[in-house]
């Protein structure tokens, strides 16, 4: 089974499945995306993070030409999304943010037949297996499905035609923890069976910790960082410090919160090269007691706005 992957790894060098240039989208006065240069290498699992309203869903919709960008270019497998919208969508398995699976009067079974007609690459054997794995009840009407049921159906529709690109907007939203684990396992198996590039947005960062190869973080529409996940984890550390009484933070160091009162021991998450940061802290008079690396979720949080700050 790894023959498929073997060939994929041998062939694809450093091409991008998704590549955007200066992608900008405004809704009235609000800037949803601001000059975003997204680069998703083929075969990678790219996790796009950001607070609510940071522009994640908008970015995904633009990639499928479901919205029109105000400026900038987006390409999927070399296809300009604006000029080749339908062709791009034929390469993509999309799970949208909304829990809307189509015609409410159709049964799940009927809807799957309907969608299968639109994707010549539909693998019915695989679809049948997924129906079992995702526990989809064939004869339920779409209108009668719960949020979780709908989500699982949308996942099935995205996976069954083995698209070269999966675009998953909060794929585990509305699912209970057991099902969430199952979905992610299915995703890993799917990746083993068919070479796929995956773009995921999620609020459950720890779930995709091991799956993610690359991480991108959107903050108020700007892509503030876009790196392999090891690099993200490397550039964020938690420092346990002893601060002297009259201590001033070095000006070029971003610390999470101003020191309150005469607190002696603090624990701060700071972005930057560990050696350089430690040096700045030490020369400023702080004593670095301990430096700890963080799991992906907490490392990413360092780039997201705090409550109250923006």
């Amino acid at each position: 089974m790894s023959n498929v992957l073997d060939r994929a790894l041998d062939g694809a060098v450093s091409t991008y499945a998704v590549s955007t240039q200066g992608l900008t989208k405004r809704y009235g006065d609000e800037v949803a995306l601001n000059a975003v240069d997204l680069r998703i290498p083929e075969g990678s699992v790219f996790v796009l993070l950001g607070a609510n309203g940071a522009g994640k869903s908008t970015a995904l919709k633009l990639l499928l030409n479901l919205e029109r960008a105000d400026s900038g270019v987006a390409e999927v497998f070399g296809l300009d999304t604006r000029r080749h919208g339908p062709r791009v969508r034929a390469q993509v398995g999309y799970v949208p943010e909304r829990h809307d699976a189509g015609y409410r009067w159709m049964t799940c079974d009927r809807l799957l037949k309907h969608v299968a007609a639109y994707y010549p690459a539909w693998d019915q054997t695989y679809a049948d297996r997924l129906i079992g794995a995702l526990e989809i009840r064939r004869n339920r009407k779409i209108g009668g499905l719960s949020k979780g049921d709908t989500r699982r159906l949308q996942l099935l529709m995205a996976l069954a035609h083995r698209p070269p690109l999966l675009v998953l907007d909060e794929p585990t939203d509305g699912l209970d923890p057991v099902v969430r684990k199952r979905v992610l396992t299915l995703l890993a198996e799917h990746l083993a069976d068919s070479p796929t590039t995956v773009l995921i947005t999620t609020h459950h960062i720890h779930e995709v910790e091991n799956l993610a190869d690359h991480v991108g973080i959107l903050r108020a529409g700007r892509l503030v960082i876009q790196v392999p996940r090891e690099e993200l984890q490397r550039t964020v550390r938690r420092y346990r410090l002893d601060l002297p009484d009259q201590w001033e933070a070095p000006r070029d160091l971003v610390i999470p919160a101003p020191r309150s009162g005469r607190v002696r021991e603090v624990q701060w998450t700071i972005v930057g090269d560990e050696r350089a940061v430690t040096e700045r802290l030490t020369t400023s008079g702080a004593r670095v007691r301990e430096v700890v690396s963080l799991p992906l979720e907490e490392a990413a949080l360092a780039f997201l706005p705090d409550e109250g700050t923006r």
Partner: protein
Amino acid sequence: MSHPALHPPPRFANVVREQVRAVALALRVPAMAALAVLVLGSGLAIGEFITGGGAVDFAPELSMVPAFVGLLFPIGVWKGENRFGTSFLWLLPVDRRQHALAKVAAGWVCLMVTVLFFLVWLFVLSLVTGGNILGEHAVQLLPSTVIPEARTLDPAALRAVRYAPDPVFWLVPFTAATGTYLLTSAVTLGVRYPVRWIIGVPLSVLLVSALGAAARIDWLKLLASRLLRFVFDGRYGLDALFTARAESLKTAVVLTTGKTVSVWRAFPDVGDWALATTLWIGAGLAALMAAALRQREK
């Protein structure tokens, strides 16, 4: 190799075929209701026939039902679809405008099947009640196309003629339904709230007319009725599309004897009908294409 082998998008014929199935499914409930109405109608007609009433002649061009069905069809076809904005339909790998037109085409196919079913029902009813399946019936024809004033017409001036409609008029229900379907589909694709327009426009004209009559504003009433007359009764008006003018060519006249009788001014002309139909369907297609411009890939 630079990119993986790309998946092909679906063939358009397959898209239309799949839409026909989806539309047929969507119209299941109205279809059941219509079936119930037909059953009721059959019951009433047969009941009347048994109690000595008249037979039902098979005159497909006289029924305005197909045109009416064509008018309402798009409402069912597009039920639940968000035509402007995001909808499941637009997520699929088909160009948005083409997809919209595919759905309209699919609806048309279902409409033709519906009209055919209606005609078959009418035909069977006609057979069962012993009516004339060629739609032949005796009519009174006026001496000229000018409608005479009340009580000026001598009965002897009327000619009794056996009218046999041209078999080509069996196409009328299909073309009539197509015409109205295209026009209302155009409205549905082009406007956010089509029902307001489809029902609102004729309703407001009627209201204006009634208002004019009630307030005795003669010119208003005249304007409204002129408008209706022009659109409907004209040589190439809507009635030409709906019934080859069989409706508007009939009129009621009061004879010198005081008796009121239904007479025909002239017979429906095949040439006129063909031209009118072509004009209306042409207009419908043009409107549809214009409306489809609103549906575009972002």
